């Protein structure tokens, strides 16, 4: 089992997008920086944009090899996309510890022993985001700018939808069935010209089709940028970006908030365990710190409220968060049907973690492709 003997060691972070993307990759990059800060002697080596569009011909193995040459002992591979390669490379480097983020091969038993999985329970933050959207929408039409379709993105989109329904019913007294919820997928976590749909275009089309809140599910900022452009034209529209705590800064006045990952504590936890030799292979799905979901030092996921929320909205949101924390509101509680009408869970039943993690389709009532 890989370990280290010194307090001074290097860890690698391999990013799928640009380190400064105001999204998923930047959240990881800053998580690494947080760990560097908290753990003197521990330094980060990072490599960004490792995807076949930005780096033609560069493989995960090459990057890992170079990081190892530079002295990295533990490497975070931070995209679902790296999962298969991480397994293969880890098998070739049994002395290096791998933390594969967002995958589940450690759980399913496919991964070698030096790979462990961790992911944040983003569905809670997404549900809060959905709630914020439902509180604000005038047209009763909410749209979701989706990345690619897999169980993770279906899960997050569904959570958003459920949060929106909850709040529309609880705080606006409306019939949740009259709420329109559309998902349009661009095909990847961010725009790759010629490969994915152009998210700018898609966001515009979502607004054109009548949505007035667009939530981003992709790693980059197109949703809020487009919404900002349209707001400048005098339209009543809002956006909810994703992934990165500072994402609202792009256009605060139309931002309803950001569900974000706070990777710092997770990185510190794994690096500490690694240093102390207590790191075991496993699959962790870290919940937010319900005492304060925005605590930088404890909560894995959070939700920043945006400037565009009214005082009343904020109060309602805080109430919703409290209900989630207390368990009064259970997100995936029945009756819930899948998009094709088959039952996911019946009346009074709450979906299991496995059911939620492996959600096979969108839910009934959502418009958009399920696979």
């Amino acid at each position: 089992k890989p370990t280290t003997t010194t307090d001074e060691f290097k860890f690698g972070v391999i990013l799928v997008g640009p380190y400064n993307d105001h999204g998923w990759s930047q959240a990881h990059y800053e998580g690494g920086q947080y760990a560097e800060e908290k753990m003197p002697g521990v330094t980060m080596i990072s490599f960004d944009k490792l995807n076949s569009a930005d780096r033609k011909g560069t493989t995960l193995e090459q990057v890992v090899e170079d990081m190892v040459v530079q002295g990295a002992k533990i490497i975070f591979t931070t995209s679902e996309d790296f999962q298969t390669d991480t397994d293969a490379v880890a098998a070739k480097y049994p002395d290096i510890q791998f933390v594969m983020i967002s995958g589940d091969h450690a759980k399913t038993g496919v991964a070698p022993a030096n790979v462990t999985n961790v992911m944040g329970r983003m569905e809670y933050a997404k549900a809060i985001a959905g709630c914020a959207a439902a509180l604000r929408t005038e047209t009763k039409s909410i749209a979701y700018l989706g990345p690619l379709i897999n169980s993770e993105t279906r899960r997050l989109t569904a959570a958003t939808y459920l949060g929106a329904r909850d709040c529309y019913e609880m705080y606006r007294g409306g019939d949740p069935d009259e709420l329109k919820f559309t998902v349009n997928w661009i095909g990847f976590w961010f725009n790759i010209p010629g490969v994915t749909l152009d998210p700018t275009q898609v966001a515009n089309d979502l607004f054109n089709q009548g949505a007035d809140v667009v939530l981003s599910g992709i790693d980059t900022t197109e949703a809020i940028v487009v919404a900002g452009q349209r707001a400048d034209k005098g339209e009543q529209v809002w956006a909810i970006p994703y992934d990165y705590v500072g994402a609202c800064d792009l256009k605060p006045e139309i931002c309803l908030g950001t569900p974000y990952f706070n990777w710092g504590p997770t990185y510190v936890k794994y690096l500490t365990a690694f240093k102390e030799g207590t790191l075991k292979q496993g699959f962790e799905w870290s919940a937010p710190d319900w005492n304060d979901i925005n605590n930088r030092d404890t909560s894995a996921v959070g939700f920043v409220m945006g400037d565009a929320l009214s005082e009343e909205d904020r109060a309602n949101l805080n109430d919703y968060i409290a209900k989630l924390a207390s368990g009064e509101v259970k997100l995936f509680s029945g009756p819930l049907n899948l998009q094709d009408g088959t039952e996911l869970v019946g009346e009074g039943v709450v979906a299991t973690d496995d059911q939620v993690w492996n959600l096979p389709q969108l839910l009934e009532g959502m418009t958009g492709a399920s696979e």
Partner: protein
Amino acid sequence: MANSLLVETIASVIASAAPLVFAGVGETITEKVGITNLSLDGSILLSAMAGFAAAMLSGSLLVGVITAMLVGALVAGIVATGSIALRQDQVAVGFVLTVLCTALSSFLGKPYVRVPGPSMPHLPIPYLADIPVIGPIFFNHDLLVYLSYVVIFGTVFLFNRTQLGLRLRAVGERPEAAFARGINVNRYRYLFTCLGGALVGLGGATFSLSVKLGWSYQHTAGFGWIALAIVIFGGWNPLRVALGAYLFGALNSLASILQPAFPTVPTQVFQTAPFAFMILTLLIMNGDVLERLPRGSRWLRKLLQGQAPAGLGKRFQSD
């Protein structure tokens, strides 16, 4: 949502096609004078990056737009120098510049990736914007979009109504004949290649300051090639080239609108629609299809046919 879905969609097509209009019309001018600037896909990227960076650093949109135009003109100037003074293959120089400019935009643009920056302010034209349907479609945009109209009609005017345009066309059609009439062929070629390049640069600026705000890697990849193709599609006629730009804009929009209707088709496939359409139109444009049209549809042939300037790509030496 005061306006219907259709009006909204058409309006956003008009706005989002503006870069393609600039680039397409710019390249039309360049090709009309007899030079092919193949570097478009790279020079749009580089100028989009430079324009955004300059606007951000200086805080002035005007500086950004001018920088982008200068970059476009500079790249075009290299194509012109390479092919005129140094007598190298235009296509080769253009292709190399495509690769080089793309790499440059990634390298130099690194600090500006997805950084929020300035954008063109929305500027509805008083009174005109209030006309039903027409108003929201054409007159409810920003300055760059209006400038794209000016460029379209200005180019039509230049080609057909001015001495300069007449001479420009003569240079592109038959440089020897233009020379015989006292026109300094190569000076015209430098001038209008750079002017066309500046418009291409303006297209780049429009991308990063008006359409897809900001800069990211490969921000506009593929659009340069589309712009080159719509020049052929438009038969070297600025009006038709602009029409082509709007058509492709509409097609792009269609791809995302159609997605929910075809949930089984992977989304990645839709993105290809404009390129497939490009091939199709070129096949119709150039192939025997037009020749085979029945006699009655001669107007259609006339509408679709276009002849490349006869001197396109031909080097001219005065002795």
